[in-house]
């Protein structure tokens, strides 16, 4: 049949459509191959193919290529057809004469022309991009990146798979049962909030107290399966799905599986590590707080601090333990309180930031009291929670009146003059007066204040006498001081250690201690003379008095101010001065302390000839023998290293004794490895292979030796015998040397 113009167009249409379909298929294939290479999953690959195929199909729409489109396209591509290819589509009958003529002309022309026209397509581009996609895929596949991207969980990585080896080399001949599935499920303790995890990796890392379940199933009949751990074995239970067993993790260690097939041959697996991580105790950090804080009586006694507590699995509770100590020496009293933070704590949080503002007055602290406190936090661990505590911090309200013991307690005497205490009495009275303001009438108040002022004055005058100040009038109560004090008698005679009299000039206190009661018995006498240690040594005399003088003078000046405010009926204003005066007096007392410490113990001299000359009839020789023969550390490891060195380079087969040696070395290493199972696991496994496998390759020996050498601890210096050849020549030379000396 003659090919009509329409047929030609139809043929072109089909060709065009085919090319478009091909284009789409190329893209989709390229993408699906790429996705397979990346994921190694057929599912992803097919899905990718379908998706790309569908998307491109919609974009390209090959079915939309109809004859009309074809004719338009051909017209636009060719000059010869005079835009008349459309005529070919119409039946001859419908056309005018001219059109018929044209149709015939075109139908001839198109036959020649159609060969020059190619349908519009992007086949080259499609081919090129799909090749590029496949190329990328192959590159990535061989560079190993895919391993990380693998979505496929059905096959186990080789290193995770339990490999069983027959313990008896004969067993190889029988087809051994094959491990079908392996699974270990770790149930973390409830409080951790972690979900149970199932994995095929037999090396376990878990929190202490986790429960572990193993599940193994075999293809083929297996008689029994057991789990061996640290020398102990336990059988796994047989269930429908396979063999299961479980345990609660207490400590790190190793384990391996062993199974017996129906013919009685046993197989063991590699060693696997159990690494038990301990639940850590909460970590407490106290911010913005000094270890030691001191407050004056008039400060605002407020401690505020911020603490942040972190724990690995969640905090249960946190609080402050505060201890207040009152008093000193034997009369010290302690009071303990548990304080909560300003915020409440949500149980189970891994980190909390807490603040606390602590007013010392709220916990009834007074001057002289000390506060010790620390923060304690407990986590959620069960049955016993981990408790941790922060460092202890101190806060002290300085005691206004503390002057401590004057001398060492051993002396048993407070050497300070009695009336030094009256400053304290004055402060107490002044405070009492202030608290009674409002209750007392103004006159009464004023007169009491005035009285206190007078007391302050008389106190000042008494101190003034030490300074050589003139005694003013108004010391009407001078009579309280005894006139008839016996000078000769030392009131402290009973207390002082006067048995070594030549030391007396050092014991300064004795002199000025017993003076205080008769300092003004003799008016002409310089009252200070008693306090000066004038032994003709101007140096020692001035040193002490200057110090004392300056302090006393300062104290007197302050007393003036204190008295002034009392006399002006302003006890509040007077109080600070009184405190200051008291403090100075305290310091004066402390300066005396230095001298007290000079009292030392001089033991009587020992007669050398009397030493070791006692009666030793009853004393007998004593003899003891002890065998500390050191069990050499890592003896078998060292032996194994040497033995392996001998095997190297020779083709000798390990003997039975060697295998026993390797086993013992393995035991030694296992003891060491418990602390760090991961580190020595490989060497342990290899030692096990050395022990069990009939054929041993050189590489394995190298690796085991390396592992063992690394396991040996660092050396410490120790003496040992040197050896040398001692010839006649040596002897001769040494003798001659000695002779010529």
């Amino acid at each position: 049949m003659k090919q009509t113009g329409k047929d030609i167009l139809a043929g072109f249409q089909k060709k065009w459509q085919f090319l478009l379909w091909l284009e789409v298929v190329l893209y989709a294939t390229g993408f699906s191959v790429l996705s397979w290479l990346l994921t190694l999953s057929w599912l992803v690959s097919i899905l990718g193919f379908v998706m790309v195929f569908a998307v491109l199909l919609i974009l390209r729409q090959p079915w939309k290529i109809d004859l009309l489109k074809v004719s338009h396209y051909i017209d636009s591509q060719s000059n010869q057809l005079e835009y008349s290819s459309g005529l070919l589509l119409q039946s001859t009958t419908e056309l005018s004469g001219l059109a018929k003529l044209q149709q015939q002309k075109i139908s001839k022309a198109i036959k020649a022309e159609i060969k020059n026209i190619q349908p519009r397509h992007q086949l080259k581009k499609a081919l090129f991009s799909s090749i590029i996609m496949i190329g990328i895929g192959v590159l990535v596949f061989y560079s190993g990146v895919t391993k990380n991207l693998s979505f496929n969980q059905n096959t186990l990585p080789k290193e995770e798979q339990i490999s069983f080896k027959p313990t008896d080399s004969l067993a190889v001949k029988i087809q051994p049962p094959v491990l079908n599935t392996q699974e270990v499920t770790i149930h973390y303790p409830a409080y951790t909030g972690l979900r149970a995890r199932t994995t095929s990796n037999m090396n376990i890392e878990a929190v202490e107290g986790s429960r572990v379940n193993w599940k193994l199933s075999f293809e083929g009949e297996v008689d029994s399966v057991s789990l061996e751990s640290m020398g102990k074995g336990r059988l796994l239970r047989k269930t429908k799905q396979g063999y299961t067993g479980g345990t609660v993790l207490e400590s790190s260690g190793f384990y391996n599986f062993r199974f017996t097939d129906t013919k009685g041959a046993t197989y063991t697996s590699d060693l696997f590590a159990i690494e038990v991580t301990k639940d850590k105790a909460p970590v407490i950090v106290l911010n913005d707080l000094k270890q030691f804080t001191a407050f004056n009586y008039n400060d605002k006694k407020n401690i505020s601090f911020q603490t942040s507590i972190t724990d690995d699995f969640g905090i249960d509770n946190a609080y402050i333990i505060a201890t207040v100590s009152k008093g000193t020496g034997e009369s010290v009293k302690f009071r303990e309180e548990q304080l909560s933070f300003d915020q409440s704590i949500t149980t189970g949080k891994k980190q909390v930031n807490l603040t606390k503002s602590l007013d010392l007055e709220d916990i009834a602290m007074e001057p002289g009291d000390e506060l010790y406190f620390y923060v304690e936090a407990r986590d959620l661990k069960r049955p016993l929670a981990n408790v941790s505590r922060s460092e202890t911090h101190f806060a002290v309200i300085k005691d206004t009146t503390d002057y401590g013991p004057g001398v060492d307690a051993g002396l048993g005497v407070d050497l300070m003059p009695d009336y030094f205490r009256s400053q304290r009495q004055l402060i107490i009275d002044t405070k009492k007066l202030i608290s009674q303001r409002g209750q007392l009438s103004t006159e009464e108040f004023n007169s009491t204040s005035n009285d206190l002022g007078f007391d302050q004055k008389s106190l000042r005058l008494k101190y003034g006498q030490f300074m050589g100040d003139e005694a003013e009038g108004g010391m009407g109560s001078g009579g309280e001081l005894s006139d008839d004090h016996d000078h000769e008698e030392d009131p402290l005679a009973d207390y002082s250690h006067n048995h070594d009299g030549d030391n007396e000039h050092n014991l300064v206190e004795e002199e000025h201690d017993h003076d205080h009661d008769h300092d003004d018995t003799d008016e002409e006498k310089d009252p200070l003379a008693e306090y000066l240690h004038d032994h003709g040594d101007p140096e020692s005399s001035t040193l002490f008095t200057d110090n004392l003088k300056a302090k006393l003078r300062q104290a007197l000046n302050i007393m003036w101010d204190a008295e002034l405010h009392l006399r002006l009926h302003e006890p509040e204003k007077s109080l600070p001065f009184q405190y200051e005066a008291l403090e100075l007096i305290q310091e004066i007392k402390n300066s005396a302390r230095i001298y007290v410490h000079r009292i030392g113990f001089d033991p009587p001299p020992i007669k050398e000839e009397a030493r070791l000359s006692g009666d030793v009839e009853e004393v007998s020789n004593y003899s003891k023998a002890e065998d500390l023969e050191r069990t050499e550390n890592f003896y078998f490891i060292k032996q194994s290293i040497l033995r392996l060195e001998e095997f190297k380079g020779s083709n000798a087969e390990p003997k039975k004794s060697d295998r026993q040696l390797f086993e013992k070395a393995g035991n030694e290493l296992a003891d060491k490895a418990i602390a760090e199972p991961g580190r020595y696991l490989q060497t342990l496994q290899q030692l096990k292979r050395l022990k069990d496998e009939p054929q041993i390759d050189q590489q394995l020996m190298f690796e085991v030796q390396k592992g063992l050498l690394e396991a040996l601890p660092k050396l410490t210096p120790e003496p040992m015998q040197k050896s040398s050849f001692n010839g006649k020549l040596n002897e001769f030379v040494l003798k001659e040397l000695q002779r010529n000396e």
Partner: protein
Amino acid sequence: MSDHLTFLNSSWFWPVLICWLILILVFVWKEWKTSGRKHLILKIFLSLLAVTSLALLALKPAVPKEIKEGRVIIITEHYNQNQLDSLKKEYRKSKVLDYRKEKALSGLTDSKEIFVLGSGVNVYDLWQLENTPVTYFPGEEVTGLIKLNYKQDPQVGKRLHVRGRFSNPKPGNRLVLEDAAGTALDSVVFDAEDHINFELSTDLKVSGNYVFSLSEKDSIGKVLNQNPLPLKVKEAKTLRILILNAYPTFEIKYLKNFLAELGHEVIVKNRITTGRFKFEFFNTERQNIGRLNSSNLDDFDLLILDSESTKALSRSEQNAVQKSMRASGLGILMLGEANALTNLGDFSVFEFQRVSATEVVLDDLDGVTVGRQPFQIKNDFGVEDIHRSNSSIVSGYQRMEQGRLGVTLLENTWELQLEGKQEAYQHIWTDIVEQLSKRNSEMLTCQPEKLFAFKDEPFTFQIRTSLDDPRVLDQNHRLLPLKQDLTLAEVWSGKTFPKESGWQKLRVEQDSTFAFDYFVHNPEDWQTVKAYQNSLENQEFFQKESVIDKDFKKSPIAINPIWFYVLFLLAIGGLWLEPKL
């Protein structure tokens, strides 16, 4: 062609002469009988000539001649091509011998002059060039390890130091010391220097024979070359120590614990009061040491006493101690106040100088302060130091014939233990105890001449022994001949040719406990060290040689036998022709 005619086959002289006489007689008789008087004289002369030529053919007469063999150039490893080229240009007819390919050097004695280029011929081949005029041209400088030194038989627990020299290193490359299993223990990175002296060190943890290795690696860790470093790590031996103390001290308490815990045999005798003692025996049997005498002292390696217990020793005990020290090598450590140590008679051998410091930082223990007495040991002749601080000696000893008498001025070292500085404490006492203790006297020691032995090369060793006639056997129980030293009767030397690489053993027939292990290297090991050493020895050897050998040497050269054949033929021909005329 004059003076001395010699016969190369001189041993045949008399038999040949007898044969000659017989033949002459036979010929004379025959001529006499057959041809009568005619031409008899001529015929006798001809037969005499013929028989004599025969005799001379057998005897090979030779005359001394100057050597005129020409020049030989021997090229060896690392030779310089320029040197070879210019020598070839100068002496066109010279013969070139590649020593690297053919090791045989025989027949060179006739050469007029020999040039050796490169790192030289092996030391054991040098004798073949003796008495020949040789000029040696050291070749190109060897690149790589050229010197190496380390102790091949260290003790376990000690530190191994490998020292050496590397020439023309490539910057960035590393020299790595690896243990038997290939773990890197120490390394040195080269920088841009022509020569580098290096020291690598490591602790030796295990005893036995091991092959460590020294590898040169580039910056990315590729091994450029690797050489085996054989080590014979010796077992540690424990000591037997006696401690005498006038009264218990903390120092002794801690010291005895330290020593006893390491497995040493320690006996402590502490005076509790007059005439009463406390005896402690660690790791050893109880024994009576109430009185010291030579027999019970000789068992000990070290005696530690304080000044007061020394004073308390009786005269005979003191003599016994002195005798033990001088004769059998007992070590003695004196403890006590410096003042007290100076008036102990024979036991006071040190002089002390007063210093002010009461604390000391020892030279090899940085950062550790130890108490000391305010004295130092005067550095007299014979005083060997154990501990030094700057220039002052705080612990030292003197040789007393076989033994050593030591003293330490360190005090209260036990406090180091309380401060947690155990290692410093152990360090201090290890030094003292080890230095002073009696040396284990060996009956026999073996010392290789060179650090390394190679396969198929002579291995020379020296033996020192008090045995009268040591018989040394090799691995295969073959007896090796030994040569006794002329002056020192105790020194013997021997030579063997190891045929296999790896560890080999030498044994002594008389002492089955003795075994000397040595490692035989493959020929390709330690090339550069060997080349450098060879070059040095060649230089030395040929320098010596060339001086002696100025004049040309004459050596007997056989007269070409063709002349005797011709003479024989002519004479016999004459005899045959004569009757025909």
